[in-house]
């Protein structure tokens, strides 16, 4: 069978679609469903611009077949946009100049959000290691690291404040 009917949930919305065996998840998301958050940089697992969360874990969606994702739950950076205000990660990338052209940013944000879920207080080395699979041709990474540090701090403060309620 080279065509398959699959079901995936993207940012909380259920979708049914037909894909070729060889359709990459990133193309199914962008071209068939219109979720243009994940960018296609290298299409060869090197740059991380296509990073999404698949069942809660950061993966490069150019290296997953759409049909492998049948039955899965996908989150793209678009999920961060459907809010009334900026998410602390978005806010910090903006404040700390963690982006210039912005092409790598969707991937950076998705990897950062997984990092901060696992490790709410990462040091610089841990941040650099976590972002190893995300390339940026503009910023030189310095400000990206600062953005992640600042986002982590904001999110810790919010978490403590909520804990106090």
């Amino acid at each position, binding site marked *: *069978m*080279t065509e*398959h009917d699959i079901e995936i949930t993207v940012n909380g919305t259920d979708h049914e679609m037909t894909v*070729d*065996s*060889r*359709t*990459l998840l990133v193309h199914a998301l962008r071209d068939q469903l219109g979720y243009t958050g994940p960018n296609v940089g290298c*299409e*060869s*697992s090197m740059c*991380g611009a296509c*990073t999404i969360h*698949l069942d809660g*874990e*950061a*993966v*490069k969606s150019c*290296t*997953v*077949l759409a*049909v*492998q994702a*049948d*039955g899965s739950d996908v989150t793209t950076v678009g999920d961060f946009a459907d809010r009334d205000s900026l998410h602390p990660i978005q806010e910090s990338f903006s404040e700390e100049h963690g982006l210039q052209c912005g092409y790598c940013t969707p991937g950076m944000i998705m*990897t950062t959000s*997984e*990092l901060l879920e696992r490790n709410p207080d990462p040091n610089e080395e841990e941040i650099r290691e*976590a972002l*190893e*699979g*995300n390339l940026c041709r503009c910023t030189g990474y310095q400000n990206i690291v600062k953005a992640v540090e600042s986002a982590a701090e904001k999110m810790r403060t919010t978490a403590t404040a909520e804990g106090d309620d």
Partner: protein
Amino acid sequence: MYPSEFDYERAETVDHALELLSGDPEAKIISGGHSLIPMMKSGLANPGTLVDIGEIDELTGIEWDDDTVSVGALTTYATIADDDELWDELPVLAEAAHEVGDIQVRNRGTIGGNVAHGDPASDLPAAVLAADATVVVQGPDGERRIDVDDFFLGMYATELGEDEILTGLEFPRSENATTTGAYVKKPSPSSGYALVGVAVSLEVDDGRIESARVAANGIMDHGVRLEPVEDGLVGESLDDVSFEDVAAVADEDLEEFMMMDDIQASAEFRAQLLKVYTEEALNDAVDRLDASLPTA
């Protein structure tokens, strides 16, 4: 970059996967797909059918019993590298899994896929050799258990048959001695794969090295044990042994004409790296031992 056309079947169980594989010489297993999909995109692999075993739950997870640790084939590097018990008891495996690629790759790639693939530059072959694994395989005639020393045969070549599935790896737990270990690698600056990676697993009792398994990948066409190094370690006391001297013979038994020699690093350079990284791995293993001993 699209792979060329192929059929895709999702297997529900190991038996179902074996059925889909049998009688179809063009069929190939897909697990994490993080070697296979890149190879299909670049035309290096063109399977007629992909048999996806990725959703077979029984192939995932880490199980402990009295004398073995079993790691299911589909267990991801991230799961292995996040497991505190493995860092305690089988640090060589946890550290090698941690050294693979980046977090996105570690979330998706599997130990079974890595070992089955037999890539000479992968990180897991040396670790499973050092950890004295038994490779568990299911085929049309039932289960086979393969000693890891007989498993890696050459570049992308292993003991695994075309119609067989690697279902898991088993590692012995040591009874009396304390086990320690380490994996260190010199990554390729472009791909991150190992130019040379060295895995060490030591059993130490009362300050003496009771047994040693040392293995490397990246240096030869497949993962290999470094027996001259092991011989130099066994029976030595940790206080007296010089790891620099022991590591100096790391390349002694290796057939020079089978050494990896390419645009990234010459065979000569790799042999030099092998000695340096062997010494480093031994030092790391012993540091880890010191760190885990209760302080008086």
